[in-house]
């Protein structure tokens, strides 16, 4: 049986597991006993996801960044992976899983909306800097959705303290990762096309996201935006990420369209 047949079947199992985990974490905001089963289901989904992505990588001989399925599925995997990694080190942060599990479910459904077979790699993909660009974009996305998990706890449960700290730290981490992603993309563009910046809509909006993250951090740190205001700010930033990486490519035909949506755009 080929990876594609297995993947097509088990992807829906993953959707089910991520959905169950999301419901569990959402209930866990109010009733603590739901958190542990939700976490176990999320770990099971992540293990299955890792096996399927690794198998696909081996079969198609390139990383998960060419087709739309690969791009969105690896986004989901990175979000859950970073969340579990952080949670493994700081256990009490695992209760903010509603953001990462919800984001993973969203991206996996987007991935399955256009499931594609095995393509080749366009010539423009053969660069180290492109890999850095992609990896750090996904890490920034994962960071902001982990911050969203804490923001939802603040918004729905009114909890402060640890959740507030969590929002600030992961927004800061998202800014660091986004900076590296933009810089690496710029270096790649220079090597490939002889220009650092082309003002293509995704590039322009990525600058807006970068400025937005910086503004958000300054508002929290220097102007004392706390609690619900900081939480709404984080949700807004996550929406900006989704706008740039998911919605914008549908409306514009640019170089990034192909890379964000897979195939020829």
């Amino acid at each position, binding site marked *: 049986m080929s990876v594609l047949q297995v993947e097509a079947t088990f992807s829906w199992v993953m959707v089910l597991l991520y959905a169950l985990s999301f419901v569990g974490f959402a209930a866990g905001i109010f009733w603590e006993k739901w958190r542990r089963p939700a976490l176990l289901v999320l770990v099971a989904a992540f293990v299955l996801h890792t096996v399927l992505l690794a198998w696909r990588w081996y079969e198609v001989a390139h990383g998960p960044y060419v087709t739309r399925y690969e791009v969105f599925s690896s986004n989901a995997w990175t979000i859950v992976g970073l969340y579990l990694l952080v949670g493994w080190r700081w256990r009490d942060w695992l209760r903010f899983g509603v953001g990462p599990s919800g984001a993973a479910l969203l991206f996996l459904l987007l991935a399955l909306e256009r499931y594609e077979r095995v393509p080749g790699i366009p010539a423009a993909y053969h660069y180290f800097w492109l890999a850095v660009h992609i990896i750090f974009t996904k890490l920034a996305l994962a960071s902001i959705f982990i911050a969203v998990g804490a923001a939802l706890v603040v918004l729905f449960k009114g909890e402060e303290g640890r959740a507030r700290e969590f929002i600030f730290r992961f927004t800061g981490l998202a800014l660091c990762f986004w*900076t590296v992603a933009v810089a690496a993309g710029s270096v790649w563009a220079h090597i490939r096309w002889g220009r650092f910046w082309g003002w293509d809509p995704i590039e322009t909006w990525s600058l807006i996201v970068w400025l937005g993250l910086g503004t958000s951090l300054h508002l929290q740190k220097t102007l004392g935006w706390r609690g619900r205001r900081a939480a709404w700010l984080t949700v807004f930033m996550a929406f900006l990420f989704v706008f740039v990486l998911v919605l914008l490519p549908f409306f514009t035909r640019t170089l990034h369209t192909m890379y964000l949506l897979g195939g020829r755009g």
Partner: protein
Amino acid sequence: MIVLSFFWQGLFGKRAYLRLMEGEEANLRTSPWLYQEKGLLVRRISFPAVLGLEEVRLVRDREGSMVPESHIYLGDLLDLTERRLTLKGPLSFRGANLYQTQDWGYVLEFLLLRPGEPHRRMFYFAQPRRDGTPPFSVQGAFLDTGYKLRIEFYPDMMHRDSWRLRLPGARVTFERNGRRLFSGWVLYSQRVRLGEDGFYFAGISRWTAFVLTADQGEPILYTGFVLTILGGFLLYGAIFWSGEKK
């Protein structure tokens, strides 16, 4: 530093787009089409070399698209170096970078045969459709004769979606003073008679395009990137780890 690099690029950066056909040679010291594409001070690029295009090869990338790679020669007239240029990266030469672009097409050569006059010839750079497939289209005047040509070129008339040169031909429309004189298929090496004048489809070769850049302010920009990344990680990384120790 990042902002400064944009000013640098605008003031001193040089960038040019060059289109060459196989067998053509450009003296980059003097060619008038070398100019600063972006920037406040429009001026020629001083690039002391000759660039010649030997051959454009088409290779299929793994996604199935045809992409060009060029065999070029570069240097001084008495000291030329042969190089291969691909989409994978630029060629650095005497402080400038030369990039292969994805643009390519066919150059169609037409001769005007007129009794009692020497042959006159014209080259037309035909471009493929947006998705890179035939027909390769171009339109333009034939020197100062008053003739205007509209050409849709197919490398293989038997297989119209093929880019391989097998049975090349074109649908050509000739106009003069707003009047259509001829419209029809012309195979390679065929002649079209228009009164006393005769047009001969004399040659087919390929063209491709290059981007030439210099003084883009790379050291300033890279320093800016490194400082921003270091600053970000020092500031927020420190907060990330120090917060835990409290």
